[in-house]
């Protein structure tokens, strides 16, 4: 039976995995060669089209493939390192990119050869992303881009960026944007670390000065950048707070560990607060399971809108409590020196770091206030605040 005759069910996919493993022994194969072979066999993301790392197979079968490769000890693409590429850039490129762009970009994105970053937020456009000011002006077959982006993870290691720009300042803000993929090695792209309250710099500021982008690297129509960006952002919120957790996974596990290891610090008041948060964390862990059960039977509920909000709130309360439990030890910090971590671990390092880093959980990827508006308006159906900016040309907005 040739590969093309294998069925697109779990057994057929297992057989395809076996073919890759037979031709590329995971114990001896070069990591990159192995990942490329897996991509070319359509086993990177099985729901993608044939020829682009997939097989047009049902998305839920990906877990079968991942489990087979993991069981064989095969190298993976270190998904946490390339989360922006996998979770945000790839679905957007797939939906809006030309065939040439898809062919060029998706394979090295998936293998991790090319890291991606996201150039969306600006100093003057945070929650109100559609107010962004980075200008792209047509110049022959190219665009010339000037502006400043901020809160960019991985910009210092990225080869590529997804970028939203202002191309028409004379129409209301949602209508005058255009979306591109940008080669970060182009002249005029300057990346500076942005140091955070933790002391380290996970994020960057990116300054764009007369950066030239070929029109072929545009995603979607000119002026349709907002619609394209919605695809990216919807995938971001799915990625945050959507993962299965064991009991005591995440921040609650860290605080519980401290409680167990330091009996001399216990008081009845701290215990009651800890257990209230333990129960809350468990309730939302179960809510996450419930959400996945709903998705599995094809009945997605509105609960997804709240998972990131709940995650941020609970993590902050737990991290805050841990410092109170630690008493005198809370007066110390492990290290303020500036570093540039490649991976971010919300529950890594020590309690002081966790407390400070958790403050970002309610800001990044949609502030908790914006999420509350979304819940109130889209889930509960409450009316929106009166809007003063909807029909005003972008250039005339107060700023």
């Amino acid at each position, binding site marked *: 039976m040739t590969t093309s005759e294998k069925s697109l069910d779990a057994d057929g996919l297992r057989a395809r995995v076996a073919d890759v493993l037979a031709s590329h022994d995971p114990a001896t194969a070069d990591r990159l060669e192995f990942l490329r072979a897996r991509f070319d066999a359509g086993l990177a993301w099985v729901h993608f089209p044939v020829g682009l790392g997939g097989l047009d197979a049902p998305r839920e079968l990906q877990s079968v493939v991942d489990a087979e490769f993991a069981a064989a000890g095969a190298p993976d693409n270190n998904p946490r390192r390339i989360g922006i590429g996998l979770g945000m850039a790839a679905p957007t490129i797939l939906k809006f990119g030309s065939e040439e762009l898809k062919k060029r970009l998706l394979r090295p994105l998936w293998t991790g050869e090319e890291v991606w970053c996201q150039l969306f937020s600006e100093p003057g456009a945070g929650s109100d992303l559609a107010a962004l000011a980075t200008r792209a002006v047509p110049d022959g077959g190219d665009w010339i881009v000037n502006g400043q982006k901020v809160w960019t993870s991985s910009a210092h290691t990225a080869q590529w960026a997804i970028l939203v720009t202002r191309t028409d300042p004379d129409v209301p803000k949602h209508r005058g944007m255009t979306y591109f993929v940008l080669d970060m090695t182009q002249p005029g792209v300057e990346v500076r670390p942005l140091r955070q309250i933790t002391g380290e710099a996970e994020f960057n500021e990116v300054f764009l000065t007369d950066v030239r982008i070929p029109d072929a690297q545009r995603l979607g129509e000119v002026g349709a950048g907002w619609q394209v960006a919605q695809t990216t952002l919807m995938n971001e919120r799915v990625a945050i707070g959507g993962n299965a957790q064991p009991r005591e996974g995440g921040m609650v596990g860290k605080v519980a560990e401290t409680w167990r290891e330091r009996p001399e610090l216990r008081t009845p008041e701290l215990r009651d607060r800890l257990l209230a948060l333990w129960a809350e964390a468990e309730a939302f862990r*179960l809510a996450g399971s419930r959400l996945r059960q709903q998705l599995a039977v094809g009945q997605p509920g509105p609960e997804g809108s709240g998972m990131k909000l709940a995650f941020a709130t609970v993590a902050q309360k737990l991290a805050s409590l841990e410092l109170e439990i630690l008493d005198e030890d809370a007066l110390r910090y492990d290290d303020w020196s500036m570093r540039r971590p490649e991976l971010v671990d919300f529950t890594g390092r020590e309690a002081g770091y966790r407390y400070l880093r958790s403050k970002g959980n309610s800001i990044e990827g949609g502030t908790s206030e914006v999420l509350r508006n979304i819940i109130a308006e889209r889930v509960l159906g*409450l009316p929106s*605040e009166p809007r003063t900016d909807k029909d005003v040309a972008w250039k005339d907005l107060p700023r």
Partner: protein
Amino acid sequence: MTNADLLYSDVETDLRASVRDLLTDRCEPASLLARAESDEPYDRALWQTLAGELGAAGLAVPEELGGQGASLREVALVLEELGRSVAPVPFLGSAVLATSALLSCDTASTEVSDLLRRLASGEATGALAVPLSTMTDAAFPGDVTAAADGTLSGTVRSVADGTAADVFVVPATGPGGHGLYAVDAAAADVSAPVSFDLTRPIADVTFQGAAATRLAGPDHAPAAVSGALRTGAGLLASEQLGLAQWCLDETVEYLKGRYQFGRPVGSFQALKHRLADLWLELVGARAAARYAADTLARRDADAPVAVAVAQSYCAQTAVHAAEECIQLHGGIGMTWEHPAHLYLKRAKASQVAFGAPGRHRAVLGDLVDLPA
């Protein structure tokens, strides 16, 4: 945990629709208020329909014992709807507490199976003679003693649904140790103190040498009582969820239609954010309540943790929802005429039922190795 089903099955959804239809027809707020101050706080006709015609009283009772052969998941679902309407029916006392205690006894004995049949069919209404505030891990109740001749004496305060009961299931201790007994309400002195919760009144019950039928001895009685309390606490979370859902829904609707400053007050972010937070609490409460019902139904080893989490979380969600309902309704929410107070009273009384949340957190800490 891996096997827990946190969704509502099609059968459960159908059952919800039937119960909700009945309660929408027969349990509207104006009649609740009138009934609350009458001599007949329970709606016996509604209870007969619910228990007898819909079979809700015997949902978790096996068919061979006269029940529906469903599970505690379905009982939880009925409680969600009863919480939503704060229906004045003795479901918790009879169909949950008394029935659960009986199901833990030797159902091969005629005394037990006969009483189960009567409760499951709605022919009789039971109550478990313990204070509603009894914590799930409390010691065997010591209020009632059994004499050598098998009669019972003692007083039990604050019995849920006690004034509606035809028969009491009574934990008592005598020469033979702990036991569980059945006493006809006619043989007891039942009084009705002024109850904080207007739609689930409590009763003080006194036995003075009351004739009793022994249902279980020391082998089964302690487990029957603690099991009933744990089941009651775990399923009460579903009632609290339903109550909170009504409060949220009602408040959202009110804020859409209430105009001040020339706009619906529901368009102000200050109010929208409070309701979004409340909605999110309900998301957590629903998951916790479903998990408690599912683990209790499957007798899963994680049920004690699930119950402690559910009571720690859902009890507060219900109180918070009822308090927000009153505050966000403004003046009308503070009136006797508006039903919001019935929900607040039920929520606050239920928070204390089976032990207040802090007590459940203490139990939880022991269960999950977070010691004092």
